[in-house]
């Protein structure tokens, strides 16, 4: 066949796969919701959702679990994005969950609200009667996530049973479930950190300033740089100093490490990511609690 060249580059192929999965969710479930953290992966998810349903609006709301310890930049970015898209935003508040007694605050220097998010997330999913929660988790992030399906079944306690997952073949996604059960769906399962950055650059997607190098007070703990804020319990030896840093992942301020970097553009970030020798979650203290910290949290309903 002459001049026969029907090839998609890898980013367009990943895009096509993710769009297919999102449309499958809209078709198979009654009440989906998109979990939005404000990080680059959930920004990518929103961008893909816009593309999947264009020119209609995204047919599901966004759900943000606010630990109360977010970077202020994250909240500002979130609110602007929601305004622009005209989608509904639901905020699940860990602060409120603590005052109502649903969860109990951790104590100590390494206290984090990361674990508390799970209870609040499950509570919000139940309140909203959502039967599918779309998340931006990727298989390359973490070894337990490498075993995750696109359509991941959760029982009526929101729990994941990694040893008894449904086989997933071709592009046939089985979203059948009983009352009270739900699914977590991960449309960007096959993307790597580098793919995400390359795609965001190609698509010229707007990102929070936290991802680019900026000056801020930071201090070191367990070999990780953490951004200083009022939420942090510091030891006397932990003295903040000004440094030029950026975030590789954005989560709760208490557990998201920052990295020394001079990357001020997305192209510089790609270069940094392509040559770095550490995983992006290497700065996440929530993963460092044990060798199987992620699997343990996921089994209980963490995303």
């Amino acid at each position, binding site marked *: 066949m002459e001049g*026969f060249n029907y090839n998609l580059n890898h980013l367009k192929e990943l*895009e096509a796969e993710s769009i297919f999965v999102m449309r499958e969710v809209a078709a198979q479930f009654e009440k989906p919701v998109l979990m939005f953290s404000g990080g680059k992966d959930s920004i990518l998810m929103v961008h893909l959702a816009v593309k999947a349903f264009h*020119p209609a609006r995204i047919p599901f709301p966004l759900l943000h679990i606010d630990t109360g310890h977010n970077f202020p930049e994250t909240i500002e970015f979130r609110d602007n994005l929601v305004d622009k898209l005209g989608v509904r935003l639901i905020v699940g508040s860990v602060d409120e969950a603590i005052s109502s007694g649903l969860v109990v605050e951790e104590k100590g220097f390494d206290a984090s609200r990361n674990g508390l998010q799970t209870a609040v997330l499950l509570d919000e999913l139940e309140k909203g009667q959502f039967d599918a929660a779309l998340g931006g988790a990727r298989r390359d992030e973490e070894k337990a996530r490498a075993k995750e399906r696109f359509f991941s079944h959760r029982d009526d306690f929101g729990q994941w049973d990694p040893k008894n997952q449904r086989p997933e073949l071709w592009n*046939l996604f089985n979203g059948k479930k009983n009352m009270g059960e739900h699914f977590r769906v991960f449309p960007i399962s096959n993307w790597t950190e580098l793919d995400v950055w390359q795609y965001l650059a190609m698509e010229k997607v707007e990102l929070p300033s936290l991802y680019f190098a900026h000056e801020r007070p930071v201090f070191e703990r367990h070999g990780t740089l953490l951004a200083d804020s009022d939420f942090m319990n510091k030891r006397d030896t932990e003295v903040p100093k000004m440094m030029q840093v950026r975030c590789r992942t954005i989560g709760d301020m208490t557990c998201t490490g920052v990295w020394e970097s001079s990357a001020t553009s997305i192209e510089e970030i790609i270069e940094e990511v392509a040559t770095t020798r550490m995983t992006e979650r290497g700065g996440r203290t929530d993963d460092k609690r044990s060798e199987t910290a992620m699997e343990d949290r996921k089994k209980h309903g963490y995303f």
Partner: protein
Amino acid sequence: MDAKHSELLRFTTAGSVDDGKSTLIGRLLFDSKSIFEDQLEAVRETSERRGEEGVNLALLTDGLKSEREQGITIDVAYRYFATPKRKFIIADTPGHIQYTRNMVTGASTANVALILIDARKGVLEQTRRHAFIASLLQIPHLVVCVNKMDLVDYSKERYEEIKEEFEKFSYKLDVKDVHFIPISALKGDNVVERSKNTTWYDGTTLLYYLENVHIGSDHNFIDARFPVQYVVRPNTDDFHDYRGYAGRVAGGVFKPGDKVMLLPSGFFSKIKQIDTFDGPIQEAYPPMSVTLLLEDDLDLSRGDMIVRENNQPEVGQDLEVMICWFNDRPMQQRGKYTLMHTTQDVRCVIKDIRYKLDINTLHRDQEDKNIEMNDICRVALRTTKPLFYDAYRKNRITGSIILIDEATNETVGAGMII
């Protein structure tokens, strides 16, 4: 890497417990700099804590607690690496006998199957099983790595012997493209770098093969098939009459102006526009996700299919299917299941179990109707509604089905339409 020009290649690895599969994957990841220092450090620590010698690279792929405890791979693990030419997705599947279902799962989307043979042991029962599954799932390319060549003194004779042995049974299989490479995953011979120890071998290295094997025709670009996945209706003032059929092209090439036929109605229309968020495009082909707009206002919904008049799929309720069974509960003769095919789901009944296949000998047993987990059989089934399908050999998307247990909602079987 030049992101705009790199392709995506999916491959599956299969091998027995000790044939060096983890070492090979570890080497590919390591040499392409896809293993990070903190991952390696974590693995090193764990290996040390368990008193293992050296760094156990299998710990990189075995992510679940129970896998790490038992030292075996239970589930398909996906690994990623990239070179300047391509991005690779590895579906790493366990080699144990009881895990055929994982191999089938990993194989369903693969472009290439990588089969490892221990040069000292030659072709084993397990090798035959892997090759058979690769052919059953119609993986377009098969690459056979004869590993541990260092342990047979890089013997050309031994390599040729194994090659011949493999070919002797693979001619019975339906595989189009088989390639052999003598390697040592441990020493690195012919994995990324050409080996000085195998001067008699004039082929390429494994990585070169993976980077260059032609995957451009792995999709079917001939027979136009567009299963409607979702109907986009904005209902806004700007797009009042917009009715778009969203889906992923399953075969062929669609262009604006094409005369199309709609199934099941049999009505005709024309493609008015192929819409995407980035604007209308001039052609759509697999595996693109697009939205088709038609000239006429017709009733079309999820599960319907857009095709060409002069190139129609099979339409019918009686199918002959090769099934791989996945569940503890055996297949029920006369049993009813939910069947998913493209974007449709219907109910079906297993009318007859034609034969059970012994995947080691390829013997067809017509008497044994007891189909248990990991068994492969041919069945006749009838659906409640007509399906629009092709033979799996012709199109892996329109020729595949899954069966779902109506009581538990579990995916209990995967099928390839004959």
